[in-house]
């Protein structure tokens, strides 16, 4: 039989210049969501500045920053978990349980760092449980974390007898109230955590496998990635960050109660998805989550300053959420067809 063999060794094919440019579009595509969010943020800021004399105030920006912290810290871990194709509904419960543990330990006389460490260990523990069940037992992460949501919250009630723990420890409370160079400590914590994890994402196996597992867990496993072990890392991280968020709640409010942070998981997930992270996994960025958080926090703040009635606030928030996402999506769509 006669086969035909070309003499093309190493020669470029027609796709070269074409695809190289396609790449830049791909890079720009993610940015489209961020750009849209930045635009929404700008619109919000301009509108609220006009509508309220108190909005454009350094102190008010501290308010906005403080209001972002609890949901924001948990959103870092949630972003990781969702990019990795998972879901963590247990964060609200973990916040409450970890906060209660820290408060109780401090009240029992333990030093603050140890108490906070214990809370984080608790969060990691719940996270590892989530990761193990969702990974090794192959149980849907929604169901897994819905179950741990109920279990952890229930145990928090059982152990506390439903009673709140009031914290008097000055150091603990200072975390919630103090400022460094005019910036609230909790905001510093939030930003540092965002930068730290955000810096790891493109530079480490941890970050790369987050995307790989979320993009195609089967392919990642076939490529030799220990997918289930990495899931422990992702959920463990989410749990530990939720625990930190819980301690921040206690520091800010001065009390730890078993009912704290109920429903916080929805706020967290809203920010993550608004930030452009795909629920199908494999796509998303921490920076987007940060913008999503900011858009929501400024909206909350502005609507209150402007004096929008609280029922209407819900309506307005829902509409803004839809518009922001729709806009990002439309811009992305039009880019596709340029």
């Amino acid at each position, binding site marked *: 039989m006669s086969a035909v063999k070309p003499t093309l060794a190493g020669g470029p094919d027609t796709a070269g210049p074409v695809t190289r440019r396609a790449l830049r579009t791909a890079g720009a595509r993610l940015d489209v969501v961020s750009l849209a969010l930045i635009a929404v943020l700008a619109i919000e800021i301009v509108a609220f500045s006009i509508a309220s004399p108190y909005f454009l*105030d350094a102190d*008010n920006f501290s*308010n906005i920053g403080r209001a972002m912290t609890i949901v924001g810290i948990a959103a870092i871990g949630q972003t990781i978990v969702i990019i990795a194709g998972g879901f963590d509904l247990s964060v609200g419960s973990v916040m409450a349980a970890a906060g209660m543990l820290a408060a109780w330990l401090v009240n029992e006389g333990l030093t603050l760092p140890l108490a906070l460490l214990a809370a984080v260990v608790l969060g990691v523990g719940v996270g590892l449980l989530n990761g193990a069940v969702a990974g090794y037992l192959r149980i849907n992460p929604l169901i897994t974390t819905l179950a741990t949501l109920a279990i952890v919250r229930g145990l928090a009630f*059982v152990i506390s007898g439903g009673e709140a723990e009031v914290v008097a420890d000055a150091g603990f409370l200072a975390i*919630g109230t103090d400022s460094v160079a005019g910036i609230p400590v909790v905001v510093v914590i939030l930003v540092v955590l965002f930068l730290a994890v955000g810096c790891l994402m493109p530079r480490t196996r941890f970050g790369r496998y987050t995307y790989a597992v979320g993009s195609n867990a089967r392919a990642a496993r076939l490529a030799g990635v220990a997918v289930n072990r990495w899931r422990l890392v992702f959920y463990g991280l989410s749990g530990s960050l939720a625990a930190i968020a819980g301690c921040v709640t206690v520091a800010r409010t001065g*009390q730890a109660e078993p009912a704290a942070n109920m429903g916080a998981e929805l706020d967290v997930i809203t920010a993550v998805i608004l930030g452009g992270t795909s629920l199908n996994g494999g796509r998303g960025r921490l920076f987007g989550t940060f913008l999503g958080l900011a858009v929501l926090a400024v909206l909350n703040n502005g609507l209150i300053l402007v004096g929008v009635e609280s029922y209407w606030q819900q309506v307005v928030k829902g509409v803004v959420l839809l518009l922001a996402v729709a806009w990002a999506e439309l811009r992305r769509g039009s880019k596709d067809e340029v």
Partner: protein
Amino acid sequence: DDSDTGGTAAGKPFVAEREAGIKGDLPPEARRLWRYDTATGRYATVAGDAADFRADLSRPARSFTLAYMDPWASSPFAIPIREGVEREAERLGLRLIYCDAAFKADKAVECAELLARQRPAFAVAGNWQAGAADALMRVFDEARVPTASIDVWQPNSIFYGADNYTSGEIAGRAAGAYARREWNCEDVWLFMGENKEEGKAADQRLVGFADGVQSVCGTIDDDRIHRQRMAAATGDQALTVTTDWLTAHPQAEHLLAVTIDDPRAAGIAKAIGQSGRDGQVAGMTCDDVGVELTKQGPASETNYLGCVAFFPERAAEYLVGIALDVVGGRAVPEEVHLQHEFLTHENIGETYP
């Protein structure tokens, strides 16, 4: 923990007496007069008789900003308070700023920061998360904003609100009277829908209820007093869990029930009716559900004995009155309580026509 039996060891009679000296629950003679000192940002005790206090609702010489922190905008009980404050503020030409604490501790602190930032002359610091009181009051104190609180005692803040224990006791007495009349106080069971998440003040309503019934019918055995968790503040869950409990307790012949608010009480009443059992539920607060059901009556048909009125629609008169006095530099009592009243099918028309 033994919340099933309301805080007593098994087998012993139910004792839950009102504690003395609880802030927010002081008897009239213990209440002092307060005046706000703008320099220190604290209330200071002044001489005078707190019992003489009457809110002055005349238009102030100069308008000011009044902050209203809503303890929970979705609560049927909080709605008329908010509406009243809005009405009074408008009538008096005050600038009203608003924030909903949404029954969440972190939201409450957030609201305090936002409201204090806008430099109001007075803030109604409505918050039902007792543990967050210190944190949010620190914010108002630092901003030198005088405050009053709703239903939950907060430091350096004038307490205004329900007499939780007393309100429960009023309901308990009414229920006890019914039991004596209809059942001669025989085989009486107490069924109480609770939700610890709603705080200790709300819990006092149940304690008061048990004491009230027992003051009429005598001691009721501990194993005949049941506390049932009803987390959702709606009728549906109350209906289901009460039905299940009734199924498991066919021996509970005569039932007296109470819970924290009217929607849940309505669910309990439905459950008693549908299960064909003999019992009555006493509602709390007389919100629109409570008023409507009580009017529907009679109790023999609705299983809804009536409700304890908390008059939320009148709260604004007191709260705004306090604000006017404090801003005007006048002294006010550290605690202002409203008068509760048990409304039944027969007499509710006089109050809510």
